[in-house]
């Protein structure tokens, strides 16, 4: 297992390199660039050219990329082309917020989704099973931002239980943090809950038919032990795979939910950077997001190892 983890971590390096090259290529296709942003709409061509030269945008793309890459190797992700603020602390702060939100949504999705799916499978074809299936279909059909707007209207504006907007860092005030992430976490997590509930239900129904589960039941093991120690563990493998894919969705979905709740995550930063053609920020966001997704996949592999001894032996 440790070999697998080591190999996966080493494999990240070429993956991130390819991601950075693709990002440079795609960004070069964008018609927007920082010089045009700074110049505004009443600049002369000479003024735009002067700004391009100031920012180094008149250099060939491979030269710009090489300069950036050498900076990254030294731990310097550069500065924003627009206001010259250092990119790494900026992206780091925002990434922490987005990950925090994604983590809360993941916990909500795992706890509610697996519970609902398991209950539905155990009561297969019952009224409760159908209700869970219908509710998960409804949740899947609702966009996260719409759920967010409803939650704000009810729990923030009407009841005043939670703040309508804003984010409090965990290190500043843990209770304030919890208060600020519950509604956005629910907005984002309900869709994951629905997805996982459906997968957990299907997987659990299949596992409950398996010989080792039937044998356990026949041997008179208590239902809690059969479900918790044998069936659930086997049923979780496809659910964990789904969760791995869902994590990438959560990072993307967080962009929209962050706006609705005025949360300072990666969303607005990424949007502004793309509109401004602020290349150092775009590169840092894509790289760190790619790294997070890759690490989430690694976590899925480790979880597989826990759930499946065959994988652990690799």
């Amino acid at each position, binding site marked *: 297992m440790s070999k697998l983890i080591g190999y996966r971590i080493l494999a990240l390096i070429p993956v991130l390199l390819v991601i950075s090259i693709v990002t440079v290529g795609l960004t070069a296709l964008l018609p*927007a660039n920082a010089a045009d942003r700074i110049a505004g709409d009443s600049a002369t061509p000479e003024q735009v050219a002067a700004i391009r030269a100031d920012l180094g945008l008149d250099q060939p793309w491979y030269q710009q990329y090489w300069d950036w890459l050498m900076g990254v190797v030294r731990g310097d992700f550069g500065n924003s082309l627009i206001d010259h603020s250092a990119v790494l602390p900026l992206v780091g702060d925002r990434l922490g917020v987005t990950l925090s939100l994604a983590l809360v949504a993941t916990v909500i999705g795992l706890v509610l989704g697996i519970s609902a799916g398991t209950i539905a499978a155990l009561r297969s074809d019952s009224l409760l099973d159908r209700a869970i299936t219908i509710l998960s279909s409804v949740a899947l059909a609702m966009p996260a931002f719409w759920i967010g707007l409803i939650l704000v209207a009810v729990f923030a504006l009407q009841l005043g239980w939670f703040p309508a907007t804003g984010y409090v860092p965990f290190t500043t005030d843990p209770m304030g943090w919890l208060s600020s992430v519950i509604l956005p976490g629910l907005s984002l997590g309900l869709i994951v809950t629905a997805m996982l509930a459906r997968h957990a239900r299907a997987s659990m129904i299949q596992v409950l038919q398996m010989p080792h589960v039937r044998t356990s039941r026949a041997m008179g093991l208590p239902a809690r032990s059969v479900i918790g120690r044998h069936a659930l563990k086997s049923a979780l493998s496809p659910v964990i795979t789904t969760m791995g894919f869902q994590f990438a969705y959560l990072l993307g979905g967080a962009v929209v939910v962050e706006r609705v709740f005025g949360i300072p995550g990666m969303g607005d930063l990424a949007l502004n950077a793309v509109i401004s053609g602020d290349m150092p920020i775009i590169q840092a966001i894509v790289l760190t997001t790619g790294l997070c997704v890759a690490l989430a996949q690694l976590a899925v592999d480790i979880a597989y190892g826990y759930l499946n001894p065959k994988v652990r032996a690799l």
Partner: protein
Amino acid sequence: MKRRPFRASTTTTVVGLIAAASLTACGGGDADAPGQLTAATLVDVQSFDPTVNPGQGQRIFLDPVYDTLLRNDADGNVIAGVAVAHELTPDYLELTLQQGREFSNGEALDAEAVKANIEHRMASSGPAAGAFANASRVEVTGSDTVRIHLDRPAPAMPIALADVAGILVAPTSLDSPELGTMPVGSGPYILDESASNKGVSYVYVPNERFDADEQQTLNRLEIKVLTDDAARAAALQSGQVDISQIARAQADSVDSSRVQKEAFPGNYWMLQFTDLDGTLAPAVKNETFRQAVCTAIDTESIAESIFFGYADSQHQVFGAGNEFHVEALEGTHAFDPDEARRLLDESGVTDAQFSVPAFGPIQTVGEAIQGNLRDVGIDMDITVVQAGTLDKENRETNFPATVTPIKQVHPQQLYVDRLSPEGPQNPFNVAHPAVDAAYEKAANAETAEERASAFAEMQTLVADEALWCGLFRDQSIVAWNPEKVQGVENAVGWPMGPSFREVTVE
């Protein structure tokens, strides 16, 4: 059986945590503290460096920390700023400065500092540089006087000095690479960098070297960036912020019994024809065709439907009450579809089509215009361009026309940017000899009356030849808690919110 108490306690803990978290929210926020104002706006500051900041809407972030040489009153008139008096002639603009002023870092705000700022702005390539296009050099003529010498007359220079062109930065910070995030000015407040979070919120505290108490009324000012319209409205209604810009679509949903709403004049919109030689769209060369286009646009209906009534149909750039308003132009090209059809027939144009670039709200306005034009037999194609590229498209020759809100607030700026053959927003470099002559007459006028008359002639030529179709002036809506916030005044041309100078908080 042994696990039941554990499960019960886990559930109790989770519920308890959530309840405690909700109580945290009920405790209120910073917006309740006396002397402290929390505001929300929709766009982040581009940079605190005035050479790379476009000004106008962005001034909400810059105004607390920076003074300008001149200012605008609530009606848009130029009034004293750091310069208590100014004299404009065709050859120079002389500024008489306040005495005894200092920047927040202790540097003297004197004639030398003003000279350094203007020279720095002149040498830059950013949006403010255009204000000094007619300036040749800057001279300190006395301990409190600075003279900007002009190559050509610059009647718009005073009004430009009320925006980013006139912002004063401490001279030692002018070339600092950190100026974009660490402003050093002479305004009533300084940016508290340790409490601010880029793109999230900017916290300002009083500048101890600022002595005009009536402008320094707050103990703490926080401007939050909330890009989502619904989030800003929710933050205002829940008391998280005291004052906020509200999207027009959200205006009716904000509870009027709890907040005060005011609509302030915003940007002027026009459909400008740029391909006047007909290179891309031959029809655009035809003056009668252009008149048909202008006459076919139902600006009142667009103001009502697209802007929810928060816009005023206005067929010339300068509205009633402005010194450059031309009464005789009222009603020119007023909406009349039958007249538009007649003009189209009269034009003899067989291929009645042209295209415009669009994105975001401009696309919505464009689609409304497109419908009006289709009704009279004119095809206006809309090409959706990528975000962040509209400014660029308006400077280039890819489209024969453009629908755009404009930044120009003086006829000279209109001429220099949009009508002059070298104007950046005259990308096909089309010459208008009669307009040029009228402008020269205005620029060299000896008196204000002569100048206004010549600019009226210039605007009349533009309207007669339908070089652009004047559409409407939009409004920006600012809402605040009236029990807490007083003294909110319109800041002309600041669509993202008012100036916080003289705003008081109870």
